[in-house]
């Protein structure tokens, strides 16, 4: 089960009083999730730690604005994703913005590579080399598609929750998720198909 579900035990009244123990509990229950999201959005531990700190500072300052209609974990994800996207935008300021362009070009990502690599032994699929490639593949996604993919498929949020976090419609979540998944499949297929060829030689 999603760890976030434990958050129902969080005492919202105590948080609003800025009770330190209640807040420490909130941090303990959510810091792994938020750090993980930062790591995968930004790709390095330093930025992930900055996102983590900023998220909880903002949560502490703005707890009055949390209405309690969604899970508190969803609210924290929302702060963290916004922080991450802001940092990514800042980082790209000097570079040309190619994200939006790529997005439309890849509009319908038709599967190109049709190779069944599922039969590869598990130890090949999760070798250090493979894991590096999986991480690199996640980083090739556009920021918007990556955020949708991480929330839905890694953090295990529902489509509705993901839509709330990203402030977009559920159908937009589905479109981004589909693009992300197909692109990842293509990236991993390139890698594992090569591996199969090399090994059959």
């Amino acid at each position, binding site marked *: 089960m999603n760890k976030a579900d434990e958050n129902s035990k969080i005492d919202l009244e105590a948080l609003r009083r800025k009770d*330190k*123990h209640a*807040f*420490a*509990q909130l*941090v*303990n229950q959510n*810091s*792994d999730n938020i*750090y*993980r999201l930062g*790591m*995968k959005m930004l790709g390095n*531990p330093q930025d992930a*730690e900055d996102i*983590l*700190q900023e998220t*909880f*500072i903002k949560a*502490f300052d703005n707890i009055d604005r949390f209405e309690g209609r969604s899970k508190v974990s969803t609210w924290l994800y929302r702060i963290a994703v916004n922080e991450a996207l802001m940092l990514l935008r800042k980082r790209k300021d000097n570079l040309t913005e190619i994200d939006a362009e790529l997005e439309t070009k890849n509009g319908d990502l*038709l*599967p190109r590579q*049709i*190779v*069944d*690599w*599922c039969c590869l032994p598990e130890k090949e*699929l*999760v070798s250090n080399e*493979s*894991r590096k490639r*999986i*991480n690199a*593949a*996640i980083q090739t996604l556009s920021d918007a598609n990556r955020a949708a*993919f*991480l929330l839905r*498929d*890694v953090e295990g949020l529902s489509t509705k929750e993901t839509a709330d976090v990203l402030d977009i419609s559920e159908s937009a979540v*589905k479109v981004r*998720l*589909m693009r992300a*998944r*197909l692109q*990842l*499949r293509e990236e*991993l*297929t390139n890698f594992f198909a090569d591996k199969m060829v090399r090994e059959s030689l």
Partner: protein
Amino acid sequence: MKHSHDLDCKDLLSQMNDYIDGDLDETLCSEIEAHIKTCQHCQIIVDTLKKTITLCREEGREVNLPPDARQRLFEKLNLPENDD
């Protein structure tokens, strides 16, 4: 690729996400399963897509907050540690 089924490869691709997430009704689900049985192309896409998601999820969930970063977080927030 054309098949005798009502559903072609293009339809399947557009329903793939919902199919993988188990969000489709039974009728559509069994139509897709029937298609996949006779179409290796789609079978491979579904299998590799599912495997891709599993591998990325497992890799993603490997990450945990390092203890020193946790300590810095609590200091920054001026919160008591070991307070579960």
